[in-house]
């Protein structure tokens, strides 16, 4: 007898089961996007779109009063290349930025080190130095405008010391110094507080070890303090450089770019071209130049961090 094995009945073909689209991962992804959507919308609306518009405007001649908006291609960029007022504006910007950044960072660090001591009254001084940061910029500048007049408070004080003070806001050199100093006192408190926070994070045992090794106070500062607060130095230098390139209100209130064009920094020149002279297209072109300068300096500082910023890792 031959046994014929019965073929098993073929299993019914089942359609492959579709994986549900809304997996936990996709739900989480969507939730994540929805969470950041308002922030992204803000960035698109207030950063990306204006930046795009600035590029678009820089290719046009926009007569606000006549209501005309004509495409001029690269004409505004050609004008930028041959503008005799651009050189002095860049020079004034450079002078202001270098002066402010050097003075601000040095003074802020000096004050922070000083106020990091465990002495009586340091809280009062910290408050005093920080309070200008929260004062309205224009009000602060107007008050300084009065103080810096020829017959103002600063020269009155110098007079008491037997010094014949200059007419601060009317001299080519002194006007720039005055603007830098006004901005320095306004903003140094912020960097001071950041440095204070960084100083308080430096482990005391490192100082103790250095002291045991016979390191002097200057050596301890140079070899221990500076490396350990170098990330904060990087942060403050980036913030101060970017801030210095955007100075406007102080110039507008104190000097209006003068005397001559000695304090006409790039942002003020941009404002003049766009909003006072109604050359909006050219103003947009100058603002792009400023954007490129800020970007380049920030990238440069960021790249250079590898050389001098200390990371424990």
């Amino acid at each position, binding site marked *: 007898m031959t046994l014929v094995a019965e073929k098993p009945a073929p299993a019914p073909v089942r359609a492959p089961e579709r994986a549900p689209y809304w997996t936990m991962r996709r739900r989480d992804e*969507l939730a994540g996007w929805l969470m950041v959507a308002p922030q992204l919308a803000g960035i698109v609306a207030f950063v990306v779109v204006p930046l795009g518009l600035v590029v678009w405007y820089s290719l046009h001649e926009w007569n606000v009063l006549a209501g005309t908006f004509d495409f001029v291609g690269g004409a505004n960029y050609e004008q930028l290349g041959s503008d005799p007022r651009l050189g002095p504006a860049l020079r004034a910007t450079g002078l202001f930025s270098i002066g402010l950044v050097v003075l601000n960072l040095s003074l802020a660090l000096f004050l922070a080190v000083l106020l990091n001591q465990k002495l009586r009254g340091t809280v009062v001084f910290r408050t005093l130095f920080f309070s200008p940061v929260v004062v309205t910029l224009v009000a602060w500048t107007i008050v300084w405008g009065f103080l810096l007049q020829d017959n103002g408070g600063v020269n009155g004080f110098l007079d008491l010391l037997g010094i014949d003070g200059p*007419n601060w806001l009317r001299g080519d050199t002194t006007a720039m110094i005055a603007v830098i100093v006004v901005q320095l006192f306004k903003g140094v408190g912020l960097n001071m507080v950041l440095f204070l926070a960084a100083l308080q994070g430096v482990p005391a045992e490192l100082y103790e070890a250095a002291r045991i090794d016979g390191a002097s106070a200057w050596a301890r500062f140079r070899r221990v303090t500076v490396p350990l607060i170098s990330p904060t130095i990087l942060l403050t230098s980036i913030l101060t450089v970017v801030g210095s390139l955007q100075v406007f209100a102080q110039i507008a209130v104190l000097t*209006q*770019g003068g*005397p001559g*064009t000695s304090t006409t920094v790039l942002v003020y020149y941009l404002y003049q071209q766009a909003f006072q002279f109604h050359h909006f297209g050219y103003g947009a072109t100058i603002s792009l130049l400023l954007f490129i300068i800020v970007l380049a300096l920030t990238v440069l500082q960021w790249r250079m961090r590898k050389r001098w910023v200390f990371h424990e890792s």
Partner: protein
Amino acid sequence: MKLPTLNVARLTAAAVAVSLLALAGCGGGSDDAGAAGPVDLRMTIWSANAKHTALFDQIAAEYKSTHPDVGKITFESIPFESYTTTLTTQIGGGNVPDLAWILESTAPDFVSSGALAPIDRDPDLLPSTTKTWEQDGQLYAYPFSTSPLGVFVNTDLVTAAGRQTPAQQIASGTWTWDQAVTTGAAVQKTGKGGIVVGDFDFKSWDALNSIWAGWGARPWSEDGKTCGFDQPEMVAAMTAIHQMVFTDQAMPGPGVTKDFFAGDAAMVLTQISRAALLEKAKFRWDLVPLPKGPAGEYSVVGQAGIGVLKRGKHVDAAKDFLAYFTNQENSAKLAQFFPPPRKSQLTTAVLAKANPLLKPAQLQSVVIDGIERGDIKTSHVGYAELQQTVRAALDPLWKPDADVPAVLAGVCAKINPLLSK
């Protein structure tokens, strides 16, 4: 740990709702041009003086009572220093006011660009007051304030310095710039300020026209094509001003502030509308015409116009309101602050009613005679750029050892390319 499952449908619906709300919030106000109901009008002004705005509001309320088609009429004050900049930024941003108060210096920009709608000309308007606001025979703004510059004098300070008052000098026919400088210097020796040029502050150089016009000088030719700073009249005038500041010390120097209205200076050259600041003055004062210069007697007139913006939402309604705002009756009311451009109202009787602080003789000599013979203040197409360029080029003049002709030649070198545009 199991994370709570999010209800995607609900989350999406919420996000859409938030987005819609945000979009609704970002949207501007509705354009009531196409909507039914009364139209709202907005006029930009630079004055924030409560008395000015109260009068404007009163006129607007009277107009609305007979015009139910008009809803709100708003007068938007913008600080003088940034007035034109803010106005043009509003226009550029599509937030165009229906009417705007326009300064004479920027009149050519507004008129020649076609920004303003033409308005009807009242035959009562003095031709000399409408010149700045015309193009091709059409009037583009109503010159509602035509204000001559005069000299307010603190007679207490002048007599205390041992000098005759300007009124006495006028009576004896010796009211000249030489005498004014001597008076200013005498007062400055007492520690107060001598001659102050209103709004000058060694930056707004165009305010000096109240002096240089006495030398017959002009910053540029009548057609605006040729620089006038290097011309003999301007060199003489600026030399006199330089001496006034640094040699005679009759005028507070750069960086020194002396407020006439606080009683700190002998004289101020400014417009008569500032008389309101003397209402509570604690010193005796007078208003006299500008001193006689080498070119003879002269007068300088500041002017402001009100125009209807062509790209405003309600051009016809704005024109109608402007006609009402400046008609005979309202012009007489406005005359208490803003000297009218109407022939029929330039009488001491009308002006005295509106200016109780000023005597009829002052009104006649400074306002009426001033408007009739006065030059309207400097203006030019692209004025803001010219203003800034001259300011920067003129800065070296405000030093004791300045070479006046060389500085003025330098001004021309800087502005010639702008004038020839």
